[in-house]
Each structure stands twice: as C-alpha cells, then as structure tokens.
C-alpha cells in the first residue's frame, strides 16, 4: 500500500516522540529479559548448588560428639555429618575454618585445585577484600597452609559472622575449609556442629527434625545440643533464595508497568495522528479503501515501535544479564558453569510489547475509524463538544493565562490523568529507595541502638549460675515456635527488671518493663504474625532442647525496633525451661573486657561491628538507589517530553494564531507547555501517599524477612529533592520542545480551513 510510505516519513518527522517511546519499550524489554533470565539462572544455580553440595536441611551444635552418626541417620532416614570449625582471628579479621565435609554441605570448588592436606580453600569475597590469591600462604592455628583455590560452602552461601547478622563485611570475616586430617591434627575446634540432610521427601523438614530430636532425647545422645536451626530459617542459606524471588517479581512488575505506560502514549499519538489525517482518511474511505486496510496501515506505527523496542531491549537484556549474574554471585558465592539463555523469557521479551501495544492501538484506531467518511472529511472528530465541566466552570475574575491553562487541562482530562499517573509512578520509583535507605539509617543509628543500648554480648556455651560481674547484666534466650506460626522462629528473652541496657517502649513512647513475674512483652512484629494483642494467650514450644510447650498471656506490646522477640523476666524464663534460679547464658555490657572464663564463653559479639556492617550495607543500597533514581528521571523525561510534544502538535493551530496575534515566544511557551505543570505537580502529590504506601509494604517485607519491627522513617527533604528533580525534568522537557514551537509556521496553519 502506497499509504505505508508515510509511516517512515511521519516517524522521521516526529522522531523525538517515537524515539522516546522506543526508549521506554527498550527499558521495559531490557528489564524483563535481563532480570527474568537473572532470576531463572539464579534459581537454577541455587537448585544445582543445593543438589551438588547436598545442602543441609538442619544443623545443630553440641558440646560432645554424638557418636555413631550412621545409626542415628538410619533411624531417622537422614544423612548426618559432623562439622567442626575454628575461628582464626588476626588483626581484627576472623577467618572461620571448617573441616571438609563429604556427605552433607560438601564444599564446592569455584576456582583452583581440589583440597588436599596442607592446602586451604577460602571464600572468594574474603580473598578479594584481603588481596589473597591462589598459591599465597595462609597461617591457621600456627600451621602454614597454601591457598589451593576458592570455595563455596553450602551453609554459608550468604557469609555472615553471626547467624543473626544482616550483612557481612568480607574484609573482616570469611570462611575457609581444610581437610579433616589437617583439622584434627592442627586445630582445636571451637564448636561441633552436626549438619543433617533428611532423605524422606514425603515429610516436611520440621516433622523430620522433631523426630530426630525425639530420637536423640529418647536415646540420651548429646542432650546439650543448641542452635537447632532449620535451613528454611537460616539467613545464611535462604537469603539467595529470597533474593531470587524478589528479582523474579521485579522482572515481571516493572516492565509491565512501563509497557502499559507506552500503550497509553502510543494510543495518544496514534489518536492525534489520525485526527490530523482525518480528512485524508475520509477521502480514502470515500474512494473505496476498506476500514481493515486503514487499520492495518495505522497499526504499523505501534508495530514499528514494538519491533525496534523489543528487539533492541531483548538483545541488550541478553547481553547484560551475565554481568548481572556475576554481580549477584559475587555476594552469594556459588559455582556456575555458564549463564544459560532462557528461550521462554526471550520469546516473551519479544512478544510482550506486541501483545500489549497492538490490541490497545487496534482498539484506539478502530474506535476512531467508526466515524463516517463525511464526518472524517469535515474534521468533526477534532471539533469536540465542550464537556459539562467546561461549561459549568465560571472563570470571570481570574487572569487570562490561568483561564487558558485551566481550560487546556479540562479539554484533555485523559492526558492530564495519564500524566498524573505517570508522574506518580515516577515519584514512587524515585523516592522509595531513598525512604528505605533513610529508614535503615534510622534503624541502624537510632532505633536498634536506643533499644539495645549496649556494645558487647558475651555468649556462654551453657547457662551458668556464676555471680554477675559489675557493669554487666544477665539475660537468656531460648528459641520457641508458636502454635499460630510454626515456621517462625521466635526468641523468648529473659531480661533483668529495670534493665539499664534494654529499653522497650509502647506505642505512645512510654517505657515498658518486666516488673512482675507474669510480665510478657510482645514485639510489634509478632502482633501481626501471631494475631495476638494485649491479653491474648499464646502457646509456645521450646524448639532447641526440650520441645516443652507452655502458654503465656501477653501483658504489653512494644513498638521498639526489636526482632521476633518476646520479653519476660529472666527468673520466669528460667522457671519455664527448668533452669535453676539465677541462671543466665548471655551477659550484656558496654565493656569489651569483662572477665569471663574462656572455658565457659562461647563467643563475644560486638554490636559496633554489626552497626559497621549495616553502614556497609547502606552504601551498597545507595548505589542501587542512585541507579533507580537515574532510571526514574530518564523515564520521567521521556514521558513528559512525549506528552509535551503531543501537546505542541495538538496546539499547532493555536500556537500559529498566537504568533500571528503578536504573542511573544516566552508567552506562547508558558501558555502551551506550562499547563502540563499542573499534571506534574498533582501527579507528584498523588505519588507521595502512594510512595508511602508502597514503601511501607516493601519495608515491612524487608523487616519481616529480618524479623524486625520499625516503621518507615520519612524525611521531608527527600520528597522536596524528588520534587525538584521531577520538576527540573519537566523544565528540561519544555526546553526540548521549544524548537518545536519555534518551527510552527504562521502562514501554513492559517491556510487550514480556507475554502
């Protein structure tokens, strides 16, 4: 069809708009393909890794060896392996060295040669942060080893020093593995751990875990076991899995939203195009062109945009995702042979723009072409009836410029609505990262610090009854499950009355204390997951040793940023778990040199170190936040520019007329382009509550995954900066449109409508 020659000419003429739209579709397809393939590859890597290493289902520690592991394993249908570890501490760094496992949590070699006596394998993050290379010497427990390669450990996929740490500083902590021979010959183990892989796929791991515990108790084997931890609750194991889920969710939601925005814009552009060509279309109709032929012609515009956007975006996605995969795997060391292309995702990346854009455009075109040839030729489509809103608006006293702007907006309410939604979307994308970052900042610098107001925790191997050293406070923690939510691990913490180090507050900011023996203070995060409130009775089961069940009545709720924790008096806790009066397993203090027996002490933990790790994490978060901000500004620029250029095109006649009447350029610019500012401002305002809602949801999810409670902390300055950025983008897009306004001819437009 000769008519189709016009497609390229029109696109060339209005290249700004079309390039903008193609850019949005490229972004959408790029996001869909790269993050989709990243998610799928991460999933494959995680699954293959779990299989290859025989990743544990459960681990626990004991003071003594369990003895015949094969017999225990046979009895409970599990493979059980002993794993010993030792912390090599030097110059403020800790390298946790493990004995090599053969049945469960087998080390996965990432680079180098397999492990042999006299050699050590270390994790690549620690190696990189401390500039250690393969072949370098390394001393552990006074013996010299040679680094044979880099390793991934299945129970340290996410490498943190303490199980409850949010993030690790690879400079100061890493893991390594040596042979069992080297370990037993040279190293005195700090702890004995047992890692368990259950073999009965028909039962869940919690049931099988309970059977194992029952078996051990009945046979009185290693009754002092501790830190009973399921892989599903173990952040060192499940963090990559959770990240994979969030990557997959992101790869689906974000591109679809961008494609939907593109749909609306394509609709606006095609609609405007058909309106301006209505006379020609009417003539073609009258000369015998079929509606289907005209529809096919106008569908070429979204088709061209979809083809270019989908192909370029998909190619970019395919090109970039291996880099993203390597970036992710740098944080979760796991072996990967090669990044795998996922044909399904590539196909969807190519098809998705067509699936959304073509039907939407078809609907718009079909709807317009319903008009008769005569009405098309008369241009009746462009002469629309004023709406009741336009009629009822009385603007007697206000200035003409304001009247004009208001009328402009009322005339194109769908366009205004779209701009508002687009800006609201950009506002969310722009601010959500900043607010979460600020909330984390507040959580790290004020929230946790003001609640847990101490620097050091001294953890004992067993509860002790020794006198409490001065400058310290005793506490004890037992892990429990509730009947309401068996998957959630809850800490039941026994604390001292009128504690100087733990300050809990209620919703009104009043201090809470465990000042009577029945006091039970529930953290806010548990209110939701346990469906509990003040006065509720909750039945807990101690999961570590006894599996004993008991019921507590909630006397208060704390909104302080704590984890999934229940606070009771230490004496009450001892009574519940059957420990002698005055027992404690932890000392908290602001002193780093409390005299405690090294035989009794299991470990010492510095909260300052955790806070430093949090700062490191925030720095990493900031990089992602800046990328998000850049992308959102880019999207805003394209969206506003496309809308502004459509506005200029739609108002060509008015611009021409204004020029003829002697309006100055800056007056025309302000009258034609400034009305969109209303949409930008309203969209931004609309975006603020949406941002808060979305951020609250995202933050809550993060808090839930970390078993913490704290509301988002909003800093008004971020919204102000965000507004300046968005409005600045609007001003930039106006500048980009100025040349379009200057190009509008006075005489040519005035010829329109002459007989």
């Amino acid at each position, binding site marked *: 069809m000769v008519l189709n020659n016009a497609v390229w000419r029109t696109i060339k003429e209005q290249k700004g708009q079309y390039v903008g739209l193609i850019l949005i579709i490229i972004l959408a397809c790029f996001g869909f393909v790269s993050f989709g393939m990243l998610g799928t590859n991460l999933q494959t890597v995680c699954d293959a890794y779990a299989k290859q290493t025989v990743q544990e289902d459960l681990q626990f520690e004991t003071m003594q060896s369990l003895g015949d592991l094969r017999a225990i394993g046979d009895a409970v249908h599990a493979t059980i392996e002993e794993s010993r570890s030792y912390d090599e501490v030097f110059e403020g760094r800790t390298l946790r060295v493990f004995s090599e496992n053969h049945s469960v949590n087998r080390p996965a070699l990432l680079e180098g040669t397999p492990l042999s006596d006299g050699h050590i394998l270390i994790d690549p993050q620690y190696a990189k942060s401390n500039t250690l290379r393969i072949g370098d010497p390394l001393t552990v427990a006074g013996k010299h080893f040679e680094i044979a390669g880099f390793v991934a450990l299945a129970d340290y996929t996410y490498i943190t020093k303490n199980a409850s740490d949010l993030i690790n500083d690879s400079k100061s902590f890493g893991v390594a593995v040596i042979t069992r021979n080297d370990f037993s010959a040279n190293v005195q183990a700090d702890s004995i751990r047992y890692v368990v892989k259950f073999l009965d796929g028909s039962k869940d791991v919690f049931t099988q875990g309970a059977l194992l515990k029952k078996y051990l108790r009945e046979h009185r084997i290693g009754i002092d076991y501790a830190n009973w931890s399921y892989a599903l609750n173990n952040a060192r194991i499940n963090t990559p899995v959770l990240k994979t889920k969030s990557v997959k969710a992101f790869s689906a939601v974000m591109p679809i939203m961008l494609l939907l925005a593109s749909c609306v814009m394509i609709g606006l552009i095609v609609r405007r195009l058909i309106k301006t060509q209505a006379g020609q279309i009417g003539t073609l109709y009258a000369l015998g062109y079929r509606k289907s032929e005209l529809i096919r012609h106008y569908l070429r515009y979204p088709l061209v945009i979809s083809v270019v956007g989908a192909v370029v975006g998909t190619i970019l996605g395919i090109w970039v995702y291996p880099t993203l995969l390597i970036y992710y795997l740098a944080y979760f060391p796991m072996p990967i042979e090669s990044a795998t292309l996922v044909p399904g995702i590539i196909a969807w990346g190519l098809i998705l723009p067509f699936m959304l854009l073509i039907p939407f455009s078809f609907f718009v075109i079909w709807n317009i072409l319903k008009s008769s040839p005569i009405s098309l030729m008369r241009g009746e489509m462009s002469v629309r009836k*004023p709406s009741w809103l*336009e*009629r009822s608006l*009385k603007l007697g006293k206000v200035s003409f410029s304001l009247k004009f702007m208001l*009328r402009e907006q009322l005339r194109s309410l769908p366009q205004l609505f779209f701009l508002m939604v687009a800006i609201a979307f950009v506002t969310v994308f722009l601010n959500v990262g900043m607010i979460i970052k600020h909330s984390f900042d507040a959580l790290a610098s004020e929230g946790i610090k003001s609640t847990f107001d101490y620097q050091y925790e001294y953890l004992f191997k067993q509860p002790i009854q020794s006198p409490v050293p001065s400058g310290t406070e005793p506490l004890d923690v037992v892990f429990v499950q509730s009947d309401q939510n068996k998957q959630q691990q809850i800490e039941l913490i026994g604390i001292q009355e009128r504690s100087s180090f733990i300050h809990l507050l209620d919703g009104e900011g009043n201090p809470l204390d465990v000042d009577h023996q029945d006091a039970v203070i529930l953290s806010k995060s548990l209110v939701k997951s346990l469906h509990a409130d003040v006065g509720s009775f909750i039945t807990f089961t101690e999961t570590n040793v006894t599996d004993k069940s008991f019921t507590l009545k909630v006397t208060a709720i704390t909104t302080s940023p704590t984890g999934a924790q229940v606070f009771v008096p230490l004496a009450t806790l001892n009574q519940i778990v059957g420990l002698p009066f005055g027992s404690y397993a932890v000392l908290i203090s602001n002193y780093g040199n409390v005299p405690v027996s090294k035989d009794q002490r299991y470990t010492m933990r510095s909260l300052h170190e955790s806070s430093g790790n949090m700062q490191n994490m925030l720095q990493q978060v900031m990089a992602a936040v800046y990328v998000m901000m850049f992308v959102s500004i880019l999207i805003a620029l394209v969206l506003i520019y496309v809308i502004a250029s459509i506005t200029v095109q739609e108002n060509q006649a*008015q611009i021409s007329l204004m020029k003829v009447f002697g309006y100055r350029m800056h007056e025309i610019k302000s009258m034609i382009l400034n009305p969109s500012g209303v949409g930008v401002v309203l969209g931004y305002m609309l975006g603020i509550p949406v941002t808060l809602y979305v951020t609250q949801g995202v933050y809550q999810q993060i808090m839930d995954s970390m078993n913490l409670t704290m509301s988002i902390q909003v800093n008004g300055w971020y919204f102000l900066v965000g507004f300046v950025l968005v409005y600045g983008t609007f001003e930039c897009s106006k500048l980009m449109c100025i040349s379009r306004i200057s190009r509008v001819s*006075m005489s040519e437009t*005035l*010829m329109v*409508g002459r007989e």
Partner: protein
Amino acid sequence: MFIQVDRATKRYKSGDVETIGIQQATLELAKGDIGVILGPSGSGKSTLLNMIGGIDRVDSGKIIINGINICAMHEKELTEYRRKQVGFIFQAYHLISHLTVQENIEMISQISENPLPMDHVLSAVGLTDKANRFPRELSGGEQQRVAIARSVIKNPQVLLCDEITGALDYASSIQVLEMIQEINRTYGTTVLLITHNQAIAAMANNVYQFRSGEVTEVRTNSQPVDARGIVW
C-alpha cells in the same frame, strides 16, 4: 500613505519547483481608508496580506507601514508590530474551541496596551448575551463576529481581513461588512480586505485587482457605498 507596498516579490520553492507568490506588487492606502484586493483564488492576495501583517517576508521590495519598513524588522520586532498595530480576521475564524466567546476575545485584550472595553466590543458585535458560550455553540456568522471582536479589541491601526465573508451566507456577510465599516468609521482604523467577491469592492476607497501575483489595476471610489447597500 499609511500602507505602502513597493514592488514586493515572493517566491516559494519546493524541491526544484518554484512558485510565484507575488510579483512586483505595488499598492498604497491612506490612513483610515478601506482597501479591497480583488482576485481569483491563487492570485497571491493572501500572500500579500500575510506580508503586510508581518507573518511572512518578501524576497525583494519594501512594505512600509506608517513610515516604517517592516521588511527590515527582525523576528522580535515583527512580533511587536503584530502585537501593537495589526488586527487579523480570517475566513476560517480560527477561534479556540475550548475557550468561551469572552475568553477568545480576552486572549487579545490581555496582550494589548490600550484595549477597548470588553463590554463595549461585545455589545458592538451583538454578542453580549453569548459571552459565555463556546464557539461550537454559535452559528458561522456569530463565530465570524467573535473573530472581528477579537481583532478589534486591541484597537489596531490596521485591520487585515482575509475572505471574511467566504464561508457566510448573504445576510451574515452584510452584517459582518457593516461591522467592519463601523469600526473603520468609529476608530479610524485602516482596513485592507481581500475577497473574490466583486460586489464588496463598492465599499472600498481603493480597489486593487490582483492576477498571477501582480496588481494589474487600481481603482479609487470617490463615494464608497454603505455595506448594507451591497447586493450580490
């Protein structure tokens, strides 16, 4: 002379094809007079009007308005010239559809230095009771009256009218022409009106016949007739 066009020439080029807009066109019109340019379609009448109005430029020749050569003006000066001295009325009205009658007129009054009172202008064009209507809600004649009011409110020194009766029936055309004459008489506005309707020439002081871009004949009416006396 208030308007002097001296051997103005304009050519349009489209690829290799060159079209003549106007060729050595010359005319003069005194202040407060009405001039009518007659000619068939495509003879260059509108091109000349656009040049006098400062919305297009000549390739050669001069256009002097009130003693100032507008061909020497740069863009900003031309904008100021149109803003302060020129009123335009078009055949296609070119009203802004989403502005009311009053707002369409206000569009010009707000950029004028000494606009006429709105009530006065609305009353003069007989649209006081339709001030809050939208253009779509008016007849063709009424829309043209809005266009006239819009041009007149700034009290321009020169009023350029391009085929203003082309789309109107006889009765509406006479009404519109009466209005133009009334404005000319009341405010001393110099009016240049182009049409292909020979009958309208009777109301002019000067009549210029246009053909193929050239002024082929100039006539002077010593006794211009009243618009209401024009018949076709």
